[in-house]
């Protein structure tokens, strides 16, 4: 009954929180935080359990099933953790905002829908929860008003296209196999024709590709993630796009199955190859677009697309190393990206809504905790050792090189260089350098903002030093799909896959730090300087006249920006404009003149008779 209880709690609390908001803001806040924490607890209880529950016995003649297994649990706990931290963060962020009631309640509804999606034991429930997730997220994005409206519209229309494609695949499967329960479908697919498998892969792949923002289906993401309210941006980037990844895992490893998947296509033109090259493009191009952004949240949004590219790259290989890397990276990205969005949200909250990177700077001393944690998350995105980003990237690189794909490995490497650039830009422009005059009054973030940021930072550190915790779960998941077992130890990986021991790395880092510290101590004595006492090109900079952060990476962006137009986005806008023109032309059928209408009726009758006379249609 556990999955059902979890869903009832999630959706039920979504309703109650809204009602509580009508009574008193404090009641609402307490209830929202409590219920999101209860959800974390409930899901935590389900670790290692394997359940299957029929929750609606007859929906159009089909059984709707919820099931709990390790894969579902892994994604569910990530979702619940990120949403609960985002809810805690909202306490100060949403205080006294008029849409707070709706924000809390819809966040819980989105969480419920995401949990339903991962717990779904048949494809129909999967689709139902998927759709509920789409429209509730649309409402939640739109609720930030202003430019968020267009972003929300773009998001939901693209989602709708994806879910329509999924619906075709889903029902084609149903008419072909007669079942929708995931294990039975997986069984039935083994005997399916290659064309049918391809139809399923393409239709579902379109839906999942849109949700996970794979290039060229990514165009909704930069708008939606940057325009949504920051706590929800964290949920969007942290876990909602991971639902697309979950879908890919389900599709490729469970429904279609590895054996069949590797057989789709011929020669170089296989599904797998196309997917991994799409993944590589998704890594490289968006990463450099991210470098060009001057809006902090837009930068993070583009970086999300790039990071999703790594996950897709890992998934498309189908080896146990790459798979473990992909799933671990999904977790890593969830932690790092939600932390960064929350950190940017805290800055936005403290500076009165500034998120333009040209306008910030020097906040490190004012918001030290936020800075430290954001630094950690940035390093995690890059994949520096001792953060949770190192092991997954190591796994992905290793399997790329081991399987003999040097170009893909190069693409992944280029992506990491880009990540270094944008992470540095983000951290520098917000936290380092001069403090602009207008931000002199900025104080540290409220406690309810620092707690979730700290917890996420702690997670990044712990999973970085002790990667065995998540790796063990990940490799157990892979094992259920028939992937070879990895030798996971608490500190890394056993020998035959290439030993990896974080303990040694830890030690090395500590020694290096100690050496550097000693060296600096023994050398010249440091001098404490004021934050303004910095220099550029040898001469002192007049305070308030010149700002480092403006036009950061100017030469680089002038060099690469001509190559980085978002052609997919332009194409969709072109398509929409043509669609509108066609719609306007179509409307002219209704002339408003009764004579024409009468003509229509008479010609319809005449056409019917004509058809019969010529072709004997009846």
């Amino acid at each position: 009954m556990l999955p059902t209880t979890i869903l009832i709690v999630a959706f039920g609390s979504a309703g109650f929180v809204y009602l509580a908001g009508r009574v008193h803001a404090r009641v609402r806040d307490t209830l929202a935080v409590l219920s999101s924490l209860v959800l974390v607890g409930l899901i935590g209880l389900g670790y290692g359990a394997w359940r299957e529950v029929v929750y609606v016995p007859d929906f159009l003649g089909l059984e709707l099933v919820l099931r709990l297994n390790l894969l579902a649990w892994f994604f569910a706990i990530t979702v619940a953790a990120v949403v609960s931290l985002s809810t805690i963060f909202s306490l100060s962020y949403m205080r006294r905002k008029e849409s707070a009631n709706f924000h809390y309640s819809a966040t819980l509804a989105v969480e419920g829908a995401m949990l339903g999606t991962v717990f779904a034991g048949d494809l129909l429930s999967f689709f139902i929860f998927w759709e509920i997730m789409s429209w509730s997220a649309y409402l939640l994005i739109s609720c930030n008003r202003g430019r968020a409206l267009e972003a929300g519209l773009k998001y939901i229309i693209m989602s709708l296209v994806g879910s329509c494609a999924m619906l075709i695949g889903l029902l084609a499967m149903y008419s072909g196999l007669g079942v929708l329960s995931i294990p039975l479908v997986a069984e039935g697919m083994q005997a399916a024709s290659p064309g049918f498998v391809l139809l399923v892969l393409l239709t579902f792949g379109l839906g999942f590709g849109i949700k996970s923002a794979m290039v060229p289906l990514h165009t909704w993401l930069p708008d939606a993630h940057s325009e949504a309210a920051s706590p929800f941006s964290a949920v969007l980037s942290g876990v909602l796009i991971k639902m697309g990844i979950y879908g890919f895992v389900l599709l490729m490893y469970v429904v279609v199955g590895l054996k069949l998947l590797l057989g789709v296509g011929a020669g170089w033109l296989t599904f797998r190859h196309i997917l991994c090259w799409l993944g590589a493009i998704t890594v490289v191009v968006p990463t450099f677009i991210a470098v060009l952004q001057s809006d902090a949240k837009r930068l993070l949004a583009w970086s999300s697309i790039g990071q999703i590219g790594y996950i897709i790259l890992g998934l498309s290989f189908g080896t146990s190393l790459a798979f473990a890397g992909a799933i671990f990276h999904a977790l890593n990205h969830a932690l790092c990206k939600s932390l960064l969005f929350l950190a940017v949200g805290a800055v936005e909250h403290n500076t009165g809504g500034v998120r333009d990177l040209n306008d910030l700077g020097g906040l490190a001393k004012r918001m030290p905790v936020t800075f430290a944690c954001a630094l950690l998350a940035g390093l995690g995105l890059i994949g520096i050792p001792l953060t949770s980003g190192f092991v997954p990237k190591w796994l992905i690189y290793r399997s790329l090189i081991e399987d003999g794909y040097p170009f893909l490995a190069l693409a992944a490497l280029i992506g990491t260089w880009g990540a270094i650039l944008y992470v540095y830009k983000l951290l520098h422009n917000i936290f380092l350098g001069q403090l602009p005059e207008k931000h002199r009054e900025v104080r540290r973030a409220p406690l309810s903002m620092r707690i979730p940021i700290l917890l996420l930072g702690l997670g990044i550190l712990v999973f970085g030093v002790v990667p065995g915790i998540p790796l063990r779960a990940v490799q157990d998941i892979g094992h259920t799909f028939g992937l070879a077992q990895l030798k996971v130890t608490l500190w890394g990986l056993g020998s035959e896959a290439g030993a990896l021991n974080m303990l040694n790395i830890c030690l090395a880092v500590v020694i290096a730090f100690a050496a550097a510290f000693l060296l600096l101590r023994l050398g010249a004595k440091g001098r404490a300087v004021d934050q303004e006492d910095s220099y550029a090109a040898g001469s002192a900079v007049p305070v308030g006249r010149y700002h480092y952060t403006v036009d950061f990476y100017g030469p680089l962006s002038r060099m690469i920006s001509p190559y980085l137009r978002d052609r997919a986005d332009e194409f969709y806008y072109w398509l929409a404009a043509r669609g509108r023109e066609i719609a306007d032309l179509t409307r002219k059928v209704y002339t408003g003149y009764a004579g024409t209408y009468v003509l229509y009726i008479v010609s319809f009758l005449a056409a019917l008779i004509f058809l019969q006379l010529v072709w004997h249609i009846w």
Partner: protein
Amino acid sequence: MVNPILLIAVPLGLGFIIPLLGLIWEKPTRYVPAAAMVFNLAASLLLLPKVLQRPWVVETAGLPPPFSIHLVAGPLGVGLSLLIALVGLLVAIYAIGYVREGPVAKYHSLYLFLLTGATGMVLTADLFNLFVFFEILCISSYALVAYHGDRAGTESSAKYLIQGAIGSSLVLIGIGFVYGLFGTLSMADIARNIDSVSPMKLFLPMAFLITGFGVEAAVLPLNAWLPDAHSSAPSSISAILSGIAIKAGLYAVARVLFTIYGADTIALLVLVIGILTLLVGEMSAFSQNNIKRLLAYSSIGQIGLIVFALGLASALGVQGALFLVVSHALAKSLLFLSVGYMIYRTGSMEISSLYGMGRRMPVSALCFTIGAFSLVGLPPFIGFPAKFTVIMAALERADPLFTALVGVVLVGTVVEGAYFFRIVQGLHFRPPPESATPARADQEEAPVSALVPICLLAALIVAVGVYPSVLTHYLGPAARDLLDKAAYIHHVLGP
């Protein structure tokens, strides 16, 4: 047990009493339609379990079929009369408060006639009687469209009248042909003898009947009256026209096609007409600025989807079509009703003037959102299982052509989603226009007499969306009632 004939007699009789009552005391007349529909609702509910086992053939003049006029209360007929009574009742409750100006007694009387016509159409077993009820429905709707007496209403009513009259005369000519060929007007009797006449001779009356009924059923290109009529009528009438009246026309077309002619061969043509209607309807709605016109065009789109489902001519397809009939009747009347008071408050039908209504009229705006999501086909609302069934029926064929057609149908859904999502955003998240005069907060929300039907409709949409099996138990037999020609003949004429 209630006699099915009372389903027609009670509203018809009360419809005639209203003007008389209105002469003495006008005030109570507005409660009469609701009372009549409560009766119909209760009677249909009582009848439904019985007719599911065996249709009830009612003889009106003491002669067994095929002589004299008779009614057949089968699963489809009673099911649809239940739907008519339900929507009719809710709209009647809405109208109690909504219709205040003008000839109120006449409104209520005509409204009852309209519902009588629709109920009669779905219950009758006689082709000419079908035409009579069809005319009752049409004439009362011509008058009701022009109820406000303003220029737009009168003009669109006149256009509607012209096209409707042509349609009716085509139906009449078709019936004349049929009578000439078979010498009988009982639908079962015609159906029994249909093979005795050459296809060429048969086709002509069919073409006339389909075109004639098709005008009311609003299939392309016979639907040009609809956007005008639905948008300039009072909102309660728009609701009943979109929710019920087109469905009655569609019922007539389906009866003629499936039960009388058993026309599987032209199913593909029906399918194509359905798709064209769907696409043209949705695309015309796409850039509409007038909310009621937009809803009217969206009705055309939905009708197209229903016709598409009928054109699949399979048990599941027809079941899906009936599911859509129910879902569209509930959702579209909900949309028209909830938007009615918004228009009343702002005095404008421009979508941009409805911005920010989510704050001023939260309940109405919420219910509008539910209706819009349901029409797009999002779970957990009734539109989802309905659309799902239709697409399931289309993909059941496992034919690449049908898969491609479903793709085209879903393009319509995306367009539909695009405009509804835009409106929903406008209602809840856009700032109200500058000109909006914020009145006192307690005056803003629609009155209770409007909120009750709106909320009931929204609740029904959610309830059936979550538990579609409450409906599917009845849709299966109803679909068979329409498709299974032999059983229909057997029930009416005996073995």
